[in-house]
């Protein structure tokens, strides 16, 4: 029971290749029909969609590294039973990081992209932080900080996985690797706080409209990516259980992930509302411009979908205890949350890049399929590389008898 080797089911393999194929074909078609067209809006759509999807899928995968580090530091036992899933997702962060790096570098260093308004030669922020803001939003700093961040994320993801697999071949009862993992987790939390929880969303997403700023923005992005990341872990856990693996994962563990999805949906709403209410109440034109287009403009539908899918649905469906323990209900809510937060990222990026010419058409859906296929392929492949239950982990007994 304790050393199950995962074999990728043929159906999953076919699905992931098919989705990946759709993604690549869509990307090529996008290159021909959108980027080469010479139409400004079509080019913006091409870059904005790539930017939004690559960042979204990178951040929800990175959430796995975060939950691993956070639970390692808290010495939590419950996660050990399905630890291999966040580890596998975390150890493919470097692939997504390379994709994001290529897209961001192309956008910043190519002359004709009109994504970031601070790249416009006429851009000159008129505020007292002139010098600092010009430094922060410069090509050189952007490149340096992006590459440093992406390499650290990718490296930590691979390292935490490596340490956990190393524990398997350690003598029984040895805690050397466990404490090493503890220290690396602390290191990652430090890096995470300086990057995702503060500077990176400002740099990558908020600076699309460089005149508008909000100090809540990074926290809000973090909450969005974290709750989607937990939903993705939930889907993997339930998929593996359905295939007959992960026998030691019980309803209690599923209940715990369900609690995370429930609690962080509320946390996301709290941050979203904190950002919204201050802007709404102060009513300063340079701030309200952000919500003008989203609340009253062409993005009205996404604004309301955002609240319904990410707050109303999870809070009402997941509130009763039996629902958090029902595999069908949590699967449904996990999908709702993933779709909802994809829409959240969509409405962060699109209004200032493509304006009222937004589409959710072949290109958007194709690129989403490509990223899903890529993640399915890489993660399922990674899961076969080590036993699904961490051997010799000090908390193994604790996780088996865990009661939520």
């Amino acid at each position: 029971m304790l050393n199950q080797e995962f074999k990728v089911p043929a159906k999953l393999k076919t699905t992931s290749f098919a989705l990946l194929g759709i993604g690549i074909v869509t990307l090529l078609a996008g290159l021909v029909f959108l980027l080469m067209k010479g139409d400004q809006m079509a080019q913006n759509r091409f870059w904005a969609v790539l930017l939004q999807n690559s960042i979204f899928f990178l951040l929800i995968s990175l959430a796995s590294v975060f939950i691993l580090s956070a639970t390692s530091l808290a010495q939590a036992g419950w996660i050990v039973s399905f630890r291999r899933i966040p580890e596998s997702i975390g150890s493919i962060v470097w692939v997504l990081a390379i994709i994001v790096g290529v897209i961001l570098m192309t956008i910043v260093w190519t002359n004709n992209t009109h994504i970031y308004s601070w790249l416009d030669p006429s851009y000159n922020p008129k505020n007292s932080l002139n010098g600092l803001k010009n430094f922060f939003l410069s090509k050189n700093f952007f490149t340096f900080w992006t590459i440093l961040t992406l390499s650290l994320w990718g490296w930590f993801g691979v390292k935490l996985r490596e340490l956990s697999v190393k524990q398997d071949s350690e003598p029984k009862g040895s805690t050397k690797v466990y404490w090493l993992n503890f220290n690396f987790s602390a290191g990652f939390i430090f890096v995470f706080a300086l990057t995702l929880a503060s500077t990176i969303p400002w740099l990558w997403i908020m600076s699309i409209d460089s005149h508008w700023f909000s100090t809540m923005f990074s926290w809000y992005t973090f909450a969005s990516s974290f709750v989607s990341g937990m939903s993705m872990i939930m889907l993997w856990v339930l998929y593996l259980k359905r295939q007959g693996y992960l026998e030691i994962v019980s309803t209690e563990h599923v209940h715990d992930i369900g609690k995370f999805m429930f609690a962080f949906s509320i946390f996301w709403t709290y941050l979203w509302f904190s950002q919204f209410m201050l802007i709404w109440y102060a009513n300063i034109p340079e701030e309200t411009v952000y919500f003008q287009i989203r609340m009253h403009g062409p993005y009205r539908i996404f604004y309301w979908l955002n609240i319904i899918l990410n707050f109303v649905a999870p809070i009402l469906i997941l509130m009763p205890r039996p629902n958090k323990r029902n595999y069908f209900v949590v699967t449904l809510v996990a999908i709702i949350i993933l779709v909802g937060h994809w829409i959240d990222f969509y409405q962060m990026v699109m209004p200032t890049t493509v304006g009222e010419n937004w589409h959710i058409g072949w290109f958007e859906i194709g690129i989403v399929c490509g990223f899903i296929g890529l993640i399915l392929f890489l993660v399922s492949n990674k899961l076969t590389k080590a036993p699904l239950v961490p051997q010799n982990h000090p908390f193994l007994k604790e996780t088996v008898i865990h009661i939520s």
Partner: protein
Amino acid sequence: MSIKKFAVAVYDDEAVLFPAVKKVRGAGYKIHDVFTPFAVHGLDEALGEKESDLHIAGFIYGITGTCTALGFMGWIFTTDWPQNFGGKPNFPLPAFIPITFELTVLFAAVGMVLTFCYLNQIMPGVKKHIFDPRQTDDKFVMVIEVNDQNASETEAFLKATGAEATNIQVAESDWWFGRFDKKEDYEIQQQLA
């Protein structure tokens, strides 16, 4: 108010208590109560307790708080005393959200604490019989209601499940107001009767 006879078993460790609970229930005895120094995970399931309805009560209190806040603020600012704050509408929903949230939490929290106290019969002045002085200190105490016929047999059974001490007590099974010397009252009642 009812005086009953109880078989009391004192255990040293939860690892002994769990199998004992299973054995006792398996043998068909009805457990009156189990006292532990801390919340033992899984004990409710082992005892066959059904899930508490406290959180349903909490949801109702929370909804009451939401409605109170929105209704009261809405009435004040639209009907009773409309005022213009910075050109905002008279019913500015975003501005009401923080207060609505706080009142929801307050109603749910206070209501649930009071309901919890009611369900567990806890209140200043409310007393209950203490079966063992160390029952919530460092010992695990299991109590089974018995009658005159099966008392000694039950006690022997409890002893066999690994209890470090057992005894038979005659005690008040409900709560009462006042002093802790209920046992003496009982003896006086017996003498009078």
